[in-house]
């Protein structure tokens, strides 16, 4: 990579650390460190919530998905605006007004300590693993693209994030998120502009070519439980997923608990709803345009450079023959794509030209499939290279400066997500476990010191998981699947908390029943999309909880309440 690009990356990293240290003032109290003294304006919280959700996977994986699979993934977010509105009028006022530091602390107020501890434990378990996975995805890609050891790429992401999170708390993280969000959007917009400028056909023709392959199909109205992305799984399953994530996950709850008022907290959530669908649509369309761009510019046969080198080293002759085949077929497909673009909307001619293009595209996919199988046989790893399409495009096609901007954007996206996870993991482990069960009479200074140690611990833990996860490709999938076992069930507990009939026994045993039912569905009917797990879990908890009922808010919480106030 050109030195100017590296300079941009280094300046960004230095800025993030310096900014974190500058924002560390006013964080000498627990309220300052964990909740930014409830002083953050709604737009800061809103941008922070958005930045947190935009992980590096969004920057490199989602456009890659757009290039290979089209924009139907956007349906996952169809439930988000509805979920934000529901949360804005239900859970947010409860949580913000209750004076709690964590979402799980509220459950002890409402139910009992065992429900609080179980939900907090499940959060630590899933988030502790997933923060490693969040770090592993960009770590692996940057390592392969730049040819640096994985340890270095993980450290490049992890060390600055741990530093500014540890020093500045929620305040530093939220303000850094604002700048990171701007950087991410600018980087994505820059790619979109470059693509449109460099595309050899008009945008209308580009979309026609992409549309002919089904990549512009954003709505699928079939009601198929085994299909992950449909309109219905997005609206129903997606709503429950977003309710779970934004309503009960401490990494999100902690953001709006830091807002200056209930109104600011609710507005910040709505701000995410604002841009999520348009932004995800834009990211996916960028991917679709990259697909069209590569109809006219030769693309690598294998996008993962590590796999490419391994295959060339071990089965060079065979791979060479495949590459020659690929080059010849690419030429035919390029001609077909130009003919299809030239034919425009011209009735029968256009249809015939498009048919020819689709036939050549199918030939290319067959050759790509053979190359991917070869890579899988040589490396013993899953060879789906979706995550490498955009980085390879950025490095070879973007002008100097923009490449550095994009890499900085990827780092920003990774850091904002990881920082949110680290602060929430720290808050939960210190307040829901350490202060609750180990030492409840410490002063602010003691808990702040403990929190900083906990941040470093979780940061190092995440780095280790990232390095380990990278060697076990399927681990990331296992972590995500595991998380979906109890996300919906935890949402069910919070919904139960808002019902007068909900009681402590119902909450605790309902939670266990919900996770049990979801696990049974996951193993018994593995084809059912994970989006439905959230619906099943939440509904089970509500039914079991309301049937069992049992007890109301327990006594003995006065000390907790007094401490919070």
């Amino acid at each position: 990579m050109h030195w100017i690009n590296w300079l941009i990356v280094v300046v960004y990293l230095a800025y993030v650390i310096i900014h974190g240290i500058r924002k560390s003032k006013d964080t000498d109290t627990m309220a300052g460190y964990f909740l930014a003294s409830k002083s953050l304006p709604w737009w800061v919280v809103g941008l922070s919530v958005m930045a947190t959700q935009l992980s590096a996977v969004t920057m490199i994986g989602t456009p890659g998905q757009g290039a290979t699979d089209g924009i139907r993934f956007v349906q996952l977010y169809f439930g988000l605006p509805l979920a934000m509105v529901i949360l804005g009028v239900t859970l947010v006022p409860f949580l913000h007004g209750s004076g709690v530091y964590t979402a799980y602390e509220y459950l002890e107020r409402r139910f009992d300590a065992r429900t609080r501890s179980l939900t907090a434990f499940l959060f630590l378990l899933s988030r502790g693993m997933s923060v490693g996975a969040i770090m592993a995805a960009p770590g692996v890609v940057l390592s392969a693209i730049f040819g640096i050891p994985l340890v270095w790429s993980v450290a490049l992401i992890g060390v600055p994030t741990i530093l500014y999170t540890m020093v500045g708390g929620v305040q530093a993280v939220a303000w850094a998120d604002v700048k990171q969000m701007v950087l991410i959007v600018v980087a994505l917009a820059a790619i979109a502009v470059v693509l449109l400028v460099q595309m050899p056909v008009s945008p209308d023709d580009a979309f026609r070519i992409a549309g002919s392959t089904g990549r512009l199909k954003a709505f699928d109205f079939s009601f198929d439980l085994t299909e992950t992305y449909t309109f219905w799984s997005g609206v129903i399953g997606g709503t429950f997923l977003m309710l779970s994530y934004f309503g009960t996950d401490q990494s999100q709850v902690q953001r709006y608990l830091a807002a200056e008022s209930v109104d600011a907290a609710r507005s910040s959530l709505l701000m995410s709803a604002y841009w999520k669908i348009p932004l995800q649509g834009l990211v996916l369309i960028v991917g679709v345009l990259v697909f069209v761009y590569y109809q006219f510019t030769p693309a690598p046969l294998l996008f993962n450079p590590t796999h490419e080198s391994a295959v060339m080293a071990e089965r060079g002759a065979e791979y060479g023959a495949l590459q020659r085949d690929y080059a010849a077929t690419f030429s035919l497909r390029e001609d077909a794509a130009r003919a299809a673009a030239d034919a425009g909307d011209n009735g029968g001619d256009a249809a015939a030209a498009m048919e020819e293009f689709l036939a050549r595209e199918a030939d290319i996919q067959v050759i790509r499939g053979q190359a991917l199988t070869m890579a899988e046989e040589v490396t013993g790893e899953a060879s789906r290279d979706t995550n490498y399409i955009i980085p390879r495009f950025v490095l070879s096609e973007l002008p100097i400066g923009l490449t550095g901007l994009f890499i900085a954007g990827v780092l920003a996206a990774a850091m904002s997500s990881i920082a949110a996870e680290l602060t929430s993991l720290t808050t939960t482990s210190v307040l829901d476990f350490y202060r609750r069960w180990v030492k409840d009479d410490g002063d602010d200074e003691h808990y702040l010191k403990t929190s900083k140690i906990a941040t470093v611990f979780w940061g190092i833990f995440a780095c280790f998981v990232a390095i380990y996860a990278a060697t076990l490709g399927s681990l990331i999938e296992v972590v995500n699947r595991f998380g979906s076992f109890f996300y919906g069930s935890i949402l069910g507990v919070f919904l139960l908390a808002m019902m007068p009939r909900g009681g402590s026994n119902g909450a605790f045993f309902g939670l266990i029943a919900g996770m049990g039912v979801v696990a049974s569905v996951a193993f018994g009917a593995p084809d059912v999309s994970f989006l439905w797990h959230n619906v099943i879990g939440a509904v089970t908890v509500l039914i079991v909880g309301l049937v069992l009922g049992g007890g109301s808010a327990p006594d003995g919480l006065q000390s907790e309440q007094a401490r919070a106030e």
Partner: protein
Amino acid sequence: MTDPDATPGSSGSTFKTTLIRVIIVQVIALAALALLQLRYTL
């Protein structure tokens, strides 16, 4: 720590204004995606 205006029934002008804007943006975004699909998908 407890927020004085934090009652469950409280409503704010920012929230209502933002809500209306959110609905408008979503309708526009979904309409744009639908147009893209109708115009270009075979």
